[in-house]
């Protein structure tokens, strides 16, 4: 039972991780919580769903379209809403409010144009599980776990080993200095939004495959946000660790105590971390977090 619940928790945590890293990337650069992030994931799930179900594309192509589509929407958000606010040197609070506005707009646009119904992906990956003794591991879970691990590894390499990563790290440390050093800030911010949006799109497609696709599904990103606060806002590695810990904790609370208390534990953890170690597990630079 314990191991089974651990498996369940890891599979939930993996999806939180895909979303949480996107949060962390954008936070590390612009210093605000992108509340529209979950809705980008939702739009990604819908793009993938429409490609598979309406256009009848093969699944891998649909998933790729969803990833790129979500990335493009994410860039569009930056271009239309955030860039202008950044240029005005407005407080980061304004960015957060703009993000909330985008979130509400996206949810309602989907309700208007596609309807509020719950939809499911056609059975791309069968509902089957592999038994290891008394432990059952879903095929879909393994598939999504592989995707999550690949995405996390690529992200880690990208940030630590490439010029792109160096530029982002420099910009997140100090944007003005980085810009004086000859880094094209706008270009890199666009790339970061593309990256975060694609990760969200991947999360959205996996969520849609595992559960259902509906306009409010992006609200799950609240958990991803808690994960990234827990791990240290702005720290990609922290976000991954936080996401897995929260996924496992949620399953353990529902499995061994009662699901009524699940969210109490999650939010209790958020309060505790803010009181005891406000910078989170892997956080640095206390002054900047708000």
């Amino acid at each position, binding site marked *: *039972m314990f191991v*089974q*619940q651990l498996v*369940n*928790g890891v*599979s*939930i945590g993996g999806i939180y991780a895909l979303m949480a890293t996107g949060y962390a990337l954008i936070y590390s650069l612009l210093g605000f919580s992108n509340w529209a992030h979950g809705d980008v994931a939702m739009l990604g799930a819908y793009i993938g769903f429409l490609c598979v179900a309406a256009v009848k594309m093969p699944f891998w192509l649909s998933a790729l379209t969803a990833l790129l589509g979500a990335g493009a929407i994410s860039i569009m958000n930056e271009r239309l809403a955030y860039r202008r606010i950044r240029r005005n040197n407005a407080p980061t609070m304004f960015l957060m409010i703009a993000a909330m506005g985008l979130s509400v707009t996206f949810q309602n646009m989907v309700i208007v144009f596609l309807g509020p*119904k*719950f939809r*499911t992906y056609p*059975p791309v990956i069968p*509902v*089957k*599980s592999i*038994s290891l003794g*008394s432990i*059952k591991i*879903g095929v*879909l879970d393994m598939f999504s776990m592989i995707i999550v691990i690949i995405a996390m590894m690529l992200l880690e390499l990208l940030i630590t080993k490439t010029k792109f990563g160096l530029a982002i790290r420099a910009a997140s440390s100090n944007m003005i200095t980085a810009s004086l050093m000859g880094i094209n800030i706008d270009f890199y911010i666009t790339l970061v939004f593309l990256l975060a949006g694609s990760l969200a799109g991947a999360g959205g497609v996996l*969520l849609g495959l*595992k*559960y*259902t696709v*509906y306009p409010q599904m992006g609200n*799950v990103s609240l958990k991803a946000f808690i994960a990234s606060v827990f791990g240290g806002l702005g720290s990609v590695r922290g976000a991954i660790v936080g996401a897995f810990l929260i996924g496992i904790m*949620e*399953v*353990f609370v*529902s*499995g061994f105590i*009662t*699901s*009524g208390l699940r969210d109490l534990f999650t939010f209790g953890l958020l309060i505790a971390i803010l009181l005891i170690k406000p910078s989170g597990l892997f956080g640095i630079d206390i002054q900047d977090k708000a």
Partner: protein
Amino acid sequence: MKIKKLTGMLYLALMLLIIASSLSGCGSKQAKDDVIKIGYVGALSGDTAVWGQAGLNGMKLTAKEINEKGGILGKKVEVIGLDGRGNPVDSVNAFNKLVDEEKVIAVIGTNFSSCNIAMAPIADQKKIPLIGTACSNPKVTVDENGKLHPYSFRIGFIDPFQGKVLATFATNKLKAKTAAVITDIGSDYSTGLTEYFIKQFEENGGKVLIKVDAHSGDNDFRAQLSKIAPLNPDVVLVPWIYKDVALIANQARELGIKATLLGGDGWDSKELLTMAGPALEGCYYTSQPSFANPVTKPYAEAYKKEFGINPETEALFGHDGLYWIKDALERAGKVDPAALKDALENTKDFKGLMGSITVDPATHNPTKPCSVYQIKSSQFEYVGDFTP
């Protein structure tokens, strides 16, 4: 000053007009002795008018049938339908109008709990029996303090009642000995069904191995289902709305739960079949009795001939409601709302097309069969009507 005087005079004129019209109203609409008037309140316009229209059509067709066979106690039946628009205010207005102007002796309708909760105290006040159709909230016949609305009745069963039928169906038909339950603790519907199911299942000699809680919208139920899986129960009660049922079913199968899943009318949506895929093959759910039952065939044919469209279930409620009133009036032996109320309250085994009704005098809730459906090759298949 001048304007004030003018408005004053207008008021006076208006008052006179109202008095005059109400006087004349009394004069012209005297209830005729040889006709029994029965009212119907339902949504006759708006987006839920399909049901309201079907209910009224069903009653009119039934009234015709009753009149052709000699009426009730030698008197002809007349059905008067007014539009309640599916909202409480309009329904109360319609009810008042039926009683005050049309002088009906009983009212059938509506299928919305919110409308009947609003009409129930007025029915008590005016002492006119009100028979709800598909409204399923317990507060339709019993107020918040648990006090009975003496003039409120209903034809359909309350939601939790399905739990009772499911329990007996599981022990008698499926020969289930053990059960597990997964409940949505945020919903009255789910907790009510759970409570009735567990009580009846244990009364029937079965054993409920475990009851786990979850919330609608959780999407991932594997933490809870993992607790059920190793116990290997014969049946698992899933009293949820279809979107959650689909998720629970798929995740349960993934974790190796092979038990037959059971549920209530929250399953009753074609969407469930596409969403759940093969995970629900062979599972059962209950619903209000409907036209799936072959005994309703002649009535459905007559309805199609008369109105040129397929009947909705609400038409059956109209049919059974009117025959129930006929049955009660004949037992009472006189045409009087108070006597009718007493007779309705003491109904035992009234046989309608939706099965036989026995009323509990303490709550006015009927004991009656539920229709059971099975999911077979991705279709809902009618199994039969079952009593608890």
